[in-house]
């Protein structure tokens, strides 16, 4: 099998020069420090494909046709060694680990750089972090790995995206997402279509010196994704398989069981009757008469299960006690299979992969499947021409039920349908009756409705490199990115959303197409102790999005979603939206004696999105660094191995301002009297511009005792000309216009430390820590403030500042809710205390009110964490590797809408309640934080207030993984190069005071009945042939 594979690949790799055999060279390869032999080292003759690998004892033997040839020894994690044969027949080699990370080459904007020479703030995350994780997209694996990068995943829907922010929130209305660049090509598709196992490295560009070369798209940072390329030498075939079990990240708060909800509902009716002036007897009777209607079902086997205190009579048997969460959530199965082939000769290199990923999801009707393939080829045509192509294809199918407060959201149904409601009727059919989401039994709907999204994505990226002169080369890089989505929403004719129209099916197909061409000249020259490195070139880019939607209602038979089955067509629609950009860019780097480094970049972007008066934007950066340890006066401090200072300043832009936002437009559909008409829908705004970011960064990097390395950074990113809606006088025809008016600043500190604690023959232990602090502040809004729902936007505040009434607890005398009056607040200009104010009976010394409307709102902190970061550990003993890392996020607040819904205090009688509601005030339980439960409560106790504002700080064991590399002596016998088995757990342990499933919610800090986060325990095996 292996031989066949090899044969195919070699044929594929084109040229195989014939060789004469004149000399047999052999030897042993050992590790320089431990003197241990190294098996599996690639040994080949430079300039040929002739090669071998070392055996279990580190021995190799190779035939060489030229006694002056050079042998190359390479091994992952080791410095490559080259030995000129010079007629020797025995060559023993020592290899040392590539510990000196400074020399590491990293992929940066339009090229590569060594960490030592780099003047910007950038971090590299290598494949080891991303590979073999049971996640659909790589961003999820980035959380906590590098400073300044905030990754928030608010939904456990398989395949759902994450919110990624680099150094804070840069925009008010436009997107604050970073730019993703895949092998030099700006990405426009969905990141979950990219197989994380194809990724070689990820570079996060944070400051101006690092990112400004991307001009009008760099404002929110850039994430460069580099995929794996073939390596010369023996063809490596690797296969990995991983299976994981997923489940909700936590159990969440407990909900009431059927007995509790029945008794509690009875109590609510009884309380409401008493408050309405009924006598105790009348109230008891009223509660008995109505409790079944309120709950919807009597979950007991007898007709009158409650006694006159509202307690279940002893011995009563429970007939129904549905745990709706059990019905909606289940254990998920994650499967991930990857086949990778990598190899090549001196002239041709190939990387090829096929993968299958499937996540069956934890929630009814939600899952994700992806098939993906990749082929990266490069070929050196002759001495000056190299050509290559990176190809990518994937096809994914997502089933995702709707979220939010719609009745069809199964997550919400699981929380609001009470436990007395059965899933099935006695005859086994679905029960569609309930008191919360009538006709929306989530179990039935999952079977009958369809929410399916299919995406096919292809990316072709050919490139050509020409060496024009010794120091001058040219590269052209073209890309064509095409994705096609095929969405189906089907509501069955009988129940739920489709019942009113006898079924509804909506299909949409959209084409998302983008292309990118860059042409760059590279000039690199050394003048004595100076190095000059110049890039100059041009780039153009275009994107087109064309959706087509059609739908029908009124189905003749159920279960057939195709449009042909519906009798009533709905208005179809189609559109195309397009934008284009042309850019010119240049960058120069200079270094002197490896001590002083300077860089400057400039880019001009002309974009169709910009207004006629602002077609071109120019962006620049300057940066400098100083390696102090290279100075003579520091070089004799032995323990100080590296000390480097750097600073950068520059500008960039955010062009996510909409495709036609600057144009005056008339739209169709303004029909009248049977005639089609058009009407103005947008005022022209020819001054519209990109959002402008100016950023300053200073940083220090150090390494002491060759063991402890780290860096610290301070940055200040000022966003100006932020897209924001300006109110207009109605006389201008429109109430508002999007203009560049807002201003905001993000400033912060970041630091990271890495310590190689132990490094011996058998043991290796290293640990790292990183932390990021960011402060966001609005500087200008063009209006004093904007109040919305839970938030207040105002100059001086941050973008996610909470503004709510302040909960004061429950009045022990009457069980009514209390809020602090806060009459001095600027919520209302009047500073007089309301008539309803009274002294806080709980003794705070402040005035409170039980009238919701009389309490004023106050600023109550932000959804943004004060700081976040990661703590990682890597431990290896002989063939065992153990790695684990924690992620923490501290100080962010969350308004928990979900919990508020389950603590409704009687506002929605019949909706299920959290078990916490059992603590409700009663005359015998006066000191509590839950108000009296009253059916049809109208005291606003569960309305927006700090009662449901929670601290969402948490510490999470993000990933822990234990792997074992089988000894080479064992696996070589079965003709394998390496075999690794591992167990890995994702999100397995969380410490938090937050109520609910997962403290990691939407970045804006509100919950929306999203599918809870998941934890996954997986087992995997990886074989190298």
């Amino acid at each position, binding site marked *: 099998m292996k031989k066949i594979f090899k044969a195919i690949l070699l044929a594929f790799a084109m040229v195989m020069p014939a060789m004469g055999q004149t000399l047999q060279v052999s030897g042993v390869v050992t590790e320089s420090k431990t003197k241990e032999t190294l098996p599996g080292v690639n040994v080949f003759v430079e300039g040929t494909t002739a090669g071998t690998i070392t055996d279990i004892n580190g021995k190799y033997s190779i035939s060489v046709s030229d006694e002056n040839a050079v042998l190359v020894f390479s091994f992952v994690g080791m410095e490559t060694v080259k030995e000129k044969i010079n007629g020797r027949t025995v060559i023993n080699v020592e290899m040392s680990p590539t510990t000196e990370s400074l020399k590491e080459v990293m992929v940066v904007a339009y090229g590569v750089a060594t960490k030592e020479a780099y003047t910007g703030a950038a971090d590299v995350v290598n494949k080891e972090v991303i590979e073999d994780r049971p996640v659909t997209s790589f961003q999820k694996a980035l959380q906590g790995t590098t400073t300044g990068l905030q990754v928030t995943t608010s939904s456990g829907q398989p395949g759902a995206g994450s919110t990624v922010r680099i150094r804070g929130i840069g925009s008010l209305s436009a997107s604050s997402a970073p730019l993703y660049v895949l092998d030099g090509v700006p990405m426009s598709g969905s990141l979950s279509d990219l197989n994380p196992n194809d990724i070689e490295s990820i570079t996060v560009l944070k400051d101006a010196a690092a990112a400004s070369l991307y001009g009008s798209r760099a404002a929110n940072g850039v994430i460069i994704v580099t995929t794996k390329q073939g390596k010369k030498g023996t063809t490596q075939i690797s296969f990995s398989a991983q299976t994981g079990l997923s489940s909700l990240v936590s159990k969440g708060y407990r909900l009431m069981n059927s007995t509790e909800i029945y008794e509690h509902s009875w109590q609510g009716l009884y309380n409401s009757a008493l408050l309405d002036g009924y006598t105790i007897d009348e109230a008891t009777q009223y509660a008995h008469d109505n409790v079944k209607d309120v709950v919807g079902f009597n979950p007991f086997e007898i007709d009158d299960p409650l006694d006159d205190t509202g307690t279940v009579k002893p011995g009563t048997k429970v007939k129904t006690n549905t745990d709706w969460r059990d019905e909606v959530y289940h254990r998920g199965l994650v499967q991930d299979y990857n086949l990778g082939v990598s190899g090549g000769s001196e002239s041709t290199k190939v990387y090829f992969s096929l993968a299958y990923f499937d996540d069956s999801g934890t929630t009814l009707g939600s899952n994700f499947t992806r098939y993906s393939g990749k082929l990266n080829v490069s070929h050196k045509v*002759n*001495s*000056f*021409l190299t050509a290559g192509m990176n190809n990518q294809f994937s096809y994914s199918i997502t089933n995702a039920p709707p979220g939010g407060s719609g009745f069809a959201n199964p997550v919400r149904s699981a929380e609001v349908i009470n436990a007395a409601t059965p899933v099935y009727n006695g005859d086994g059919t679905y029960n569609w009756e309930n008191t919360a989401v009538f006709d929306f039994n989530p179990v039935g709907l999952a079977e009958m409705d369809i929410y399916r999204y299919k995406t096919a994505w292809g990316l072709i990226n050919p490139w050509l490199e*020409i060496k*024009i002169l010794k120091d001058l080369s*040219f590269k*052209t890089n073209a890309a064509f990115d095409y994705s096609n989505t095929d969405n189906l929403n089907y509501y069955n004719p009988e129940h739920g959303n489709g019942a009113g129209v006898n079924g509804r099916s909506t299909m949409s197909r959209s084409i998302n197409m983008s292309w990118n*061409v860059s*042409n760059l000249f590279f000039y690199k020259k050394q003048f004595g102790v100076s190095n000059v490195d110049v890039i100059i070139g*041009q780039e*153009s880019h*275009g994107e087109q999005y064309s959706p087509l939607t059609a739908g029908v209602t009124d189905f003749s038979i159920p279960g057939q979603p195709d449009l042909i089955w519906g009798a009533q067509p709905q208005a179809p629609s189609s*559109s*195309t*939206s*397009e*934008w*284009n950009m*042309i850019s010119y860019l240049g960058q120069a780097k200079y270094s002197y004696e490896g001590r002083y480094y300077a860089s400057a970049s400039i880019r001009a972007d*002309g*974009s*169709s999105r910009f207004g006629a008066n602002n*077609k071109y934007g120019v962006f620049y950066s300057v940066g400098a660094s100083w390696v102090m340890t290279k100075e003579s006066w520091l070089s004799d401090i032995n323990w100080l191995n590296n000390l480097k200072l750097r600073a950068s300043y520059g500008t960039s832009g955010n062009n996510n301002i909409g*495709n*036609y936002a600057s*144009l*005056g*437009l*008339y*739209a*169709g559909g*303004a*029909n*009248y*009297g*049977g*005639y*089609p*008409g*058009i*009407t*103005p*829908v*947008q*005022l*022209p*705004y020819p*001054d519209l511009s990109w959002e402008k970011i100016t950023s300053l960064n200073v940083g220090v990097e150090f390494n002491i005792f060759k063991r402890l390395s780290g860096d610290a950074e301070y940055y200040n990113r000022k966003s100006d000309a932020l897209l924001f809606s300006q*109110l*207009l*006088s*109605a*006389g*201008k*025809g*429109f*109430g508002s*216009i999007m203009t560049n008016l807002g201003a905001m600043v993000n400033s912060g500190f970041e630091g990271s430390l890495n310590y190689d604690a132990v490094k011996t023959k058998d043991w290796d232990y290293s640990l790292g820590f990183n932390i990021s602090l960011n402060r966001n502040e609005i500087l200008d809004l063009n*209006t004093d403030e904007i109040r919305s729902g839970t938030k207040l936007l105002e100059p001086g505040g941050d973008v996610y500042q909470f503004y709510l009434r302040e909960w004061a607890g429950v009045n022990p005398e009457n069980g009514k809710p209390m809020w602090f009056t806060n009459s001095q607040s600027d919520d209302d200009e009047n500073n007089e205390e309301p008539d309803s104010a009274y002294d806080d009976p709980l003794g705070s010394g402040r005035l409170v009110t039980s009238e919701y409307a009389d309490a004023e709102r106050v600023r109550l902190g932000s959804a943004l964490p004060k700081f976040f970061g990661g703590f990682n550990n890597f431990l290896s003993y002989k063939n065992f590797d153990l790695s684990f890392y924690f992620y923490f996020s501290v100080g962010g607040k969350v308004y928990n809408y979900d919990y508020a819904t389950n603590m409704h205090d009687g506002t929605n009688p019949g909706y299920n309640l959290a078990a916490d509601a059992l603590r409700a005030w009663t005359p015998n339980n006066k000191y509590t934080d839950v108000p009296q439960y009253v059916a049809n409560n109208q005291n606003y106790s569960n309305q927006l207030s700090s009662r449901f504002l929670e601290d969402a700080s948490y510490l999470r064991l993000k990933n822990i993984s234990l792997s074992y590399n089988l000894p080479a002596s064992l696996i070589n016998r079965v003709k394998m190069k390496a075999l690794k088995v591992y167990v890995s757990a994702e999100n397995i342990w969380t410490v938090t005071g937050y109520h609910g499933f997962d403290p990691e919610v939407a970045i804006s800090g509100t919950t929306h009945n999203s599918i809870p986060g998941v934890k996954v325990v997986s087992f995997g095996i990886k074989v190298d042939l």
Partner: protein
Amino acid sequence: MTKHILKIRVVLMLMIAGMLTSCGDDFLNPKPTTALEDEDVFTSLTNAKAAMVGAYDQLSSYYFDGLYLPIMSDLTGEDVMLNSTNNYNWFVAVYQLNVLPNYQYASNPWSLGYKIIYDANKIIEGAPKLPDATDEEINQLVAEAKVMRAYVMLKMVEVFAPAYAEDPEAPGILLVTSPMEYGAPDVGRTPVKDIYVQIVSDLLYAEDVLGTDNEPGFFGKRAAQALLARAYLDMQDWENARDKAKLAYEGMELMSVNDMLGGFYRSNSETIFSLAYTPEDNNIYLSIPSFYWPVNGYSSIRANDKFVELYADNDFRSYLFTKVPSIDPDNYLILKFQHNQSVGNAERISIRASEMYLIEAECEAELGNDKNAQDALFAIQKRSIPGVGRPTETGEELINKILLERRKELFGEGFRWNDIKRRNLPLVREGDHWVKLDIQPGSDDYYRLTFPIPQRELDANKALTESDQNKGY
């Protein structure tokens, strides 16, 4: 060998240089496919006509003439009432005469009114540049747009400013007669009388240009004349109002009683202008029949008992009121405005000849021509009241009778509010109203008959300050 390589390099470089050549102007200015750029609208008559249709569509929006203005004009009066329950709180503040500057009942008609004026101004500005239209076609478009502009301005000045008759110098509304750029200086409030000067001038132009062969859903000569009659009536220019009213109905036959009682949902022999909703294109629940017709909608408008009592027993129009205990045990239901087969599908008759007769009658009475006034009033009365005698009242008594006839004939069609204002009448609500009022002219509360300028406008408009708010708010 070296030469050969050099050659290849040169060729390659040339290829690449080709790729570098800059792209055309279209590259940085792609056209949207779902919208037309402003500059592409007034390039052909077809497009310009579509823009005119679009302006009518805006006018027919429920925020303006489709629902808000007509329904609010009767709710700010004595004759109709609003259910306090099962009405989702619609228009309650209007019925209570309690509309504040931040209420949508003031801000939505204000914003939409100026949006329609913007649409009309774009046509008035753009039509003369049409390359493929004759002068006649251009004038027709401009004239229709001017009627549109005048129609909207007349409604807005009646709602948002004090009555002309009370104080023509009072601040009126914003006078906007050409499309303004976003950065242009804001305009403040123009005195009421200057607003009327603009309205009259627009309409006189249109009267001259337009013919009478239009569909009733579009403005023609008669509409221009009828609106002139309304404007002159507000200005108490009785002679001009009478003349234009007579011109507007001249040659029209009054609708039959059957049409009157038949649901009022499609244009008939006396319709001068109606909003032409179609089964596919109407405001469904946010429509006049949805609120007025006793079933199939909000169905929350009722007739006041004292108003119903004003009708003579043999007045056919009294059939427009009924009590159906199963729907409402207490109040009179109104059967004037019916759905046409589907909810909301009903033309809204906005100008009709009967109103013109009543304007004629009022003007003649004011001018002392009692006989002519009696004739015009009789023309309306005799249609609905079999055997009624020709009116014999004169002077003030006759004027009051004509004003009463306006209530009986035109209720629900959006006139009462302005009739109270322009004649400086008291607003007295009695009988089964759940918000009873007695607002006498000159009293402190009379300001409530004028809507506030929306707060949003005061905030956004740099030419206005809080002191530009209407009196009382």
